[in-house]
């Protein structure tokens, strides 16, 4: 099947199935010498699947009604050299498969598309954790303890413990996420790496992989206008950034 055929919107023909190839092999090796170009008993072109169907020797999907199979099962053909059980099964299975396929290959629909289930989902827990480790500069920072304790509540998995991955984030998960972020955003390790407010740009660059935009600058101004300590202002900025949809998903 060529890619070109389907991409231009035309149906294409599937190659013969393995079952058909094997069935034709059986017929070639056992029947073709008498029923190939020769026409013994009125049977010819025995290795042409389309001819087998059009001549009625094969009834697609009906092995027991197919004359070709009746002949070999009753050991009438090939004379004095009956087909093995496995060769008979190969013919039988091929004929059965023809019930929903045309001989010579089935036509593949031109349009193979489906309706993709597009749903929003958070970044995998492991990616979020790895981003936080990058922000902190250490995988062993003590402020990560709560987050690590909550990892299975936040979507991580461990098949050895029969805990499967979770691809959604609900209100409770969001609460757990914020609870787990609080020690991180309070940590002096983080606030010293991204000193407020000058470090906001580097923080966004590290957390979100982009530069500050107009909305960010407006948010920074709003936070700066609050009556709070520098540490508190950093904490707010940190929590807002790391709980934003852009950090959690897209």
């Amino acid at each position, binding site marked *: *099947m060529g*890619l070109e055929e*389907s*991409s231009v919107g035309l149906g294409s023909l599937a190659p013969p199935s*393995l*079952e058909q*190839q*094997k*069935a034709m092999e059986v017929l070639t090796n056992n029947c073709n010498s008498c029923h190939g170009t020769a026409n013994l008993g009125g049977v010819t072109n025995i290795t042409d699947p389309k001819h087998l169907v059009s001549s009625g020797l094969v009834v697609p999907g009906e092995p027991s009604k197919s004359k070709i199979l009746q002949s070999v099962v009753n050991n009438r053909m090939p004379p004095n050299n009956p087909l093995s059980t*496995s060769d008979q099964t*190969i013919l039988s*299975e*091929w004929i059965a*498969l023809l019930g929903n396929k045309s001989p010579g290959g089935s036509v*593949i*629909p031109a*349009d*193979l*598309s*489906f*309706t*993709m*289930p*597009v*749903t929003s*989902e958070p*970044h*995998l827990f*492991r*990616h979020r954790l*790895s981003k936080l480790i990058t922000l902190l500069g250490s995988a062993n920072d003590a402020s990560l303890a709560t987050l690590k304790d909550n990892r299975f509540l936040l979507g991580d*998995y*461990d*098949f*050895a*413990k029969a805990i499967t*991955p979770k*691809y959604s984030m609900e209100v409770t998960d969001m609460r757990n996420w914020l609870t787990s972020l609080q020690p991180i955003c309070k940590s002096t390790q983080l606030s010293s790496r991204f000193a407020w407010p000058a470090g906001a740009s580097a923080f*966004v660059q590290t957390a*979100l*992989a*982009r530069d500050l*935009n*107009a*909305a960010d600058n*407006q*948010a920074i101004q*709003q936070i700066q206008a*609050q009556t*709070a300590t520098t540490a*508190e202002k950093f*904490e*707010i900025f940190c*929590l*807002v950034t790391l709980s*934003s*949809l*852009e*950090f959690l998903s*897209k």
Partner: protein
Amino acid sequence: MKSLTRIVFKGLLLAGFCFGAGAPGTALAQSAENLKALSYMGYLSTRIVGRPLNSSEISALKSSGSAAFGQIASAWSREPNFAENMQIYVETLLGTSGVSGIGDFGLPGYLAKEIAAKGKPYSELLTANYCVNGSGQTIPCDTQAPFNAGVLTTKAFLSTYGGAYNISRAAKMMDRFLCSDYPFSEAEEPRLTEQELIAQFSTRNGTITFGNGNDCYTCHSQFGWHSQFFVKFDGNGVYKAAATGLQNPSTSVTDGFSTDNTYTSHLKDPNRAKSENSRILGKPAKNLAEAAVILTQSPKFLSCAAKNMSKHFLRLSGNTLNGIHPALYEQIATQAKALSPEPGFGDLLQAIITNPHVFNSFKKSGATP
């Protein structure tokens, strides 16, 4: 402090604060098709590289639309998160991760991460003659077998799917890597004869049938070939060279279990029952490592990889998954082979992403940019 956080947070939300919002108006200048391409890749980037699109990707998609898919997808495959996501994919595919009392169940996932990070062929999942630890270092594999067959020869796989007659191990191997279930056609897997099988599995047209409507012989005459490759591995996945494959004679031991925590062979002849020599897809193989190579050479192998990766990364399930024409996966496999004769994770995902039918499937969903 808590109240201050709440007030500011609420205020920011009310003000429509949102990091990453694009400047209004610019989108209107772009063609609808390019915006759909942008939306599609933005949707996939989270799942494949664990991040939103960066500014250069956004620019490329806005200006070139779907023509930019290939270049972006190719670059994604070189990112660290990509390799980690392939680890997660394989862990999910096999249901193996973490650490158990038996061993490190992370080995299949670590191998996948290594293969993805180094751009090695996807087939190495079954043919790798090495194992990798959580730090990415090459280590001896954990089964003590004299050969290795990628994820198949890990305690994680072998003990997770250990069970009577080695049926689950064989079935999982064929399902996860060929997307095929028993019975196979005679053309694909010629059957063992009734005479070669133990009595339990030689029943034909008898009263014992399974949910799939087949008698014992129909499936077990093929299971017998494949389960034989596992006959030397005990329930914990440890290789036992002395395993006999014979039913444990103790009356307290359930059918299907042999001695020393190994499992019973399907084969009647004691010499064959203890031997790993068997067949798969009609071809002889001396052990699981040779069998795995034969599996990777099947035309079904890559299209099955395309199916499994599409299923995982596009989160396909139920009727949607069941309704997809197999030709789509064959087409993706062909695309991947055009990218590399031995496609890796990156080639396969690039083939999925750039496949026009997959992009159309996203557009059909009605998702808005």
